[in-house]
């Protein structure tokens, strides 16, 4: 087997094995360098992986050398390689940013172990995407979740501790529900391999056990996704976690949960069952819409900008769920596209916020007064990110909304299209509050002198901002891959 054959497992292994190395070495600078190297190597592998899948089709890998369903296999298809690419890219960029940010927010003697946990969270997320075995999803979900609880708790405010605890309780309930769901599926089919499950479920899909398994899986994944009304953990967790952690998790963790939902609902259960026999389409559309409107409304009234963006994330996830609920290739494609675009948007925004926190120490609306003059580059990044959030062309946000509206109109659902636009309007309101304070607000008399953020932070921020615009104009790759994945998923239904 050549190096290229091992790619599916390398994307996970590299960060996974870096974590114990960080613990062994236990020096802040060295562990940052190792984490940075691991993230970029993993990213490079992900690129190679995506290219290979694009040309030769789905890649499989038998862990331990045992064929499935007796052994665990990794399956990388278009959707998986797409999501892996996003997660690794975000990790690579956040690691660049992390050097100064982490050094200022985390006590020095904890930094090495902090990076080790970050690597574990990263590896866990990629592991969830790469695997083709249902129980393996559970195991890696727990790796990344436990690491996330620890990472979030390291925030400077004491409220980070309770936020992490609430996330732990809700996250564990979610994971246990997923375990129950997998158990029911196993009970009726005898297998854990997702492809095998997809083949065997149709003949037993009428049974109550399978239906219950479906329900438990939906709720469990929904908790991890922050689907309304199971989103309660998210605003606090994002608001109080260290800046680098918020940026990384906001761009990746919930997206991976969306991936899991797609994988289970559309591939394992099949689109016909999930969106046809079971009322998942209505549930997703309904809850998605409520999430969009409610979360956007709450965001308008937030003073803490991190919380504002956290609620905004709940709304964005609502858009993704809406797309899936539309039950068409366009709708699902729009959702998948938004996984990519949202990572770009929120990644840029939270990183930029982290830069502000680095210089000022806090991120309330009051702190933003006059920031446009004092930190021009950072503020410009936030402005563009904000435009993307609203959905103004030529940003990626516009592309996602476009396809989503297209999908709703395809089915003649005018009222829903209107609601999507209302969501954008609400985003306009809260983003405008921010812009107004930053560019038109007067600097407070007792405000401390601040300089622009350091280059190590500005570079990754602006890479993401540039990507926001580039992929907003040149949509071939992102849209093409998303639509292809969607067609495969919807076509495989039943």
């Amino acid at each position, binding site marked *: *087997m050549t190096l290229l054959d*091992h790619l599916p*497992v390398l994307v996970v*292994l590299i960060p*996974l*094995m870096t*974590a*114990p*190395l960080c*613990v*062994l070495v*236990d020096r802040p600078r060295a562990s940052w360098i190792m984490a940075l190297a691991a993230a970029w190597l993993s990213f490079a592998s992900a690129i190679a992986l995506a290219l290979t899948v694009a040309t030769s089709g789905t890649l499989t*890998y*038998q*862990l*331990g*050398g*045992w064929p499935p*369903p*007796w*052994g*665990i296999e990794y399956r990388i298809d278009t959707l998986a390689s797409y999501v892996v690419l996003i997660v690794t890219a975000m990790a690579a960029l956040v690691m660049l940013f992390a050097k100064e940010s982490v050094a200022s927010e985390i006590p020095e003697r*904890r930094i090495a*172990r*902090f990076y*080790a*946990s970050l690597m*574990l969270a990263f590896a*866990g997320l990629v*592991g969830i995407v790469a695997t083709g*075995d249902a*129980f*393996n999803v559970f*195991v*890696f979900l*727990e*790796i990344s979740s*436990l*690491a996330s*609880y*620890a990472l979030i*708790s*390291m925030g400077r405010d004491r409220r980070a501790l309770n936020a992490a605890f609430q996330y732990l309780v809700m996250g564990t309930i979610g994971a246990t529900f997923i375990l*129950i769901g997998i158990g*029911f599926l*196993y*009970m*009726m*089919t*005898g*297998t*854990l391999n997702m492809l095998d499950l997809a083949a*065997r479920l149709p003949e037993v899909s009428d*049974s*109550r*056990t399978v*239906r*219950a*398994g479906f329900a*438990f899986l939906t709720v469990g994944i929904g908790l991890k996704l922050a689907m309304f009304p199971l989103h309660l953990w998210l605003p606090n967790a994002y608001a109080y976690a260290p800046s680098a952690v918020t940026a990384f998790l906001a761009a990746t963790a919930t997206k991976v949960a969306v991936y899991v939902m797609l994988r289970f609902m559309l591939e394992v259960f099949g689109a016909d069952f999930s969106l046809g026999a079971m009322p998942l389409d209505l549930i997703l559309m309904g809850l998605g819409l409520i999430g969009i409107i409610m979360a956007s409304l709450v965001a308008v009234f937030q003073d803490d900008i991190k919380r504002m963006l956290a609620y905004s994330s709940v709304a964005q996830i609502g858009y993704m769920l809406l797309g899936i609920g539309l039950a068409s290739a366009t709708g699902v494609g729009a959702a998948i596209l938004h996984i990519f675009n949202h990572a770009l948007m929120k990644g840029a925004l939270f990183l930029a916020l982290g830069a502000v926190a680095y210089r000022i120490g806090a991120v309330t609306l009051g702190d933003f007064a006059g920031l446009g003059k004092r930190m021009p580059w950072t503020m410009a990044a936030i402005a563009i990110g904000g435009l993307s959030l609203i959905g103004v062309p030529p940003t990626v946000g516009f592309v996602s909304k476009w396809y989503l509206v297209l999908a709703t109109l395809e089915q003649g659902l005018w009222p829903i299209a209107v609601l999507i636009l209302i969501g954008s309007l609400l985003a306009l309101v809260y983003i405008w509050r921010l812009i107004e304070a930053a560019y038109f607000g007067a600097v407070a008399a007792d405000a401390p002198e601040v300089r622009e953020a350091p280059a190590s932070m500005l570079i990754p921020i602006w890479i993401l901002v540039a990507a926001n615009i580039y992929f907003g104009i040149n949509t071939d790759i992102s849209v093409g891959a998303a639509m292809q994945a969607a067609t495969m998923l919807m076509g495989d239904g039943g």
Partner: protein
Amino acid sequence: MLIAVVAIRMRDLFGVVILFGVYSLLTAVLFMDLDAVDVAFTEAAVGAGVTTVLLLSGLRLTRRWEAPPRHNPLFSLLVVGITGAALVYATLDAPLLGDPSSPVHKHVAPRYLQQAVEEVGMPNIVTAVLASYRGYDTFGETLVVFTAGLAVLLLLGFPDGSESRARSSALGDQLVLKVVVKLLVPLILLYALYVQFHGDFGAGGGFQAGVIFATGFILYDMVFGSANARAVMPADWLPRLAALGVLIYGGVGIFSMLAGKPFLDYSALSADPVQGQHLGVLLVELGVGVTVFSIVLSIFYALSGRRPRS
């Protein structure tokens, strides 16, 4: 079942934790009855043993009594009712207990039962599946332990030397205890080693062994005081040992990759594939045992060495 209800109503948390320990022990007995010996062993050691010790350490650092409930339990009861109904609904179509024609007995599992002895070379099928067929899951599980230990260390850290030297053992100068423990500890450690290496043939394996090995140290710490315990096993070594365990496990997998086989394919370890399997399982379980031992002991040190803040 009764225990569960009482645990809900009790407000003395110490009682709740002990009852929970009893519940775990009963669960372990139930597992024995259902022919799940490895699971029973693990539940007894990990569930009843470690969890109880952890919770009690946590109680020491917080409060023993729970405040009276303030809000209306109606909403919670509703949620629980719906979930329970969904679960009962699910069972209506489920295969019955012990039914040999249920899907789980007809697909996937038969190959393990029939061919594990030939392919992996060991009679304990659970170990064969755990360490070889689904070895990657176990790798993940080892990493879960590592991640949790890391999390606890990030949150609590180890107490520094001066605190522990000043404190004498919590159990004072009980001569009988000291003598008995001195006799027991080597036996416990020996038993742990037995469990570690005999796991291929009887119930056992890395997780249980790691926990039991740690128990020996914990017992020593409790009776002879943390100063002595830390002289034997310094706290700083533990995270590094844990990392080493993970690296051993991963290292075996990487070795397979370098030999041109997939990650964790043990047949790459020796000319005879079954020998390779044996070697692989041995090394991998060792990695697990080392990591579990180090993390369990680390967590204990972190919790026990911390002074309660009033």
